């Protein structure tokens, strides 16, 4: 999971890329000929200094290793950004960064 947060044109520009297969559940494994079960991120939460500022819900239609970005005017250099994701299998991950 990569997270970048920097001030740009008066707003914090927050970009995150999560390494995730985002399996649709429709794909057939070429080796086993079995359907690969759906496995996708459902929720990504963006917080500044511990307060949620945006929550993105998604499904299989978001690409694998998704790149997601949000902007926050109401933030400044030095503030702490935390991005957390959870998927349909209950797996999760998070990353923290200080806004530059």
């Amino acid at each position, binding site marked *: 999971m990569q997270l970048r947060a920097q001030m740009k044109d008066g707003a914090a520009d927050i970009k995150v890329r999560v390494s995730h297969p985002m399996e649709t559940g429709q794909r057939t494994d070429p080796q086993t000929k079995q359907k690969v079960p759906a496995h996708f991120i*459902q929720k990504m939460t963006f917080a500044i200094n511990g307060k*949620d500022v945006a929550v993105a819900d998604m*499904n299989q239609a*978001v690409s694998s290793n998704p790149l997601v970005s*949000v*902007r926050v005017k109401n933030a400044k250099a030095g503030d702490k950004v935390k991005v957390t994701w959870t998927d349909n299998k209950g797996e999760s991950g998070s990353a923290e960064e200080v806004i530059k």
Partner: protein
Amino acid sequence: VSHTRRNFLKGTLALSLGGIALGSGLLKPGRVEAAEWPKAGFESKSIDDALKSVFGASATTASGAIKVKAPEVAENGAQVNVSMQADMPNVEAMAILVEKNASPLAAFMSLSGADPFFATSIKMAQTSDVHFVVKAGGKLYSVKKTVKVTAGGCGG
């Protein structure tokens, strides 16, 4: 996660959110649901049904205040970068829907302090209109853009 645990968590979440909402007088339809993943919306087979499910209404007004970026032609439907920015006040939520995907709703963002901007990468099964919908001041606004897909990204 087992069904029992999920239901238990759901119940607990609903109770605590209900408590907060009642206590602060913020109880509004649709508001309490926001904390949960909107399964019905994501499984809806039409744009109208998806919008009704996540926004409570499906009628949208076309708006030039929504600036979107999406490619005219996507050579790889598995990775189409799109973004939307709504230059309007009181934006509460934004959604990205791909008309010809089996389930159109791809992403839904609720704002609680972030700017009305959202960028993500989506999959497109075939050439389709992509709808960008914004809820602001209780009303729905939208803009759509056609993306021509030369190799679909949902099959296998």
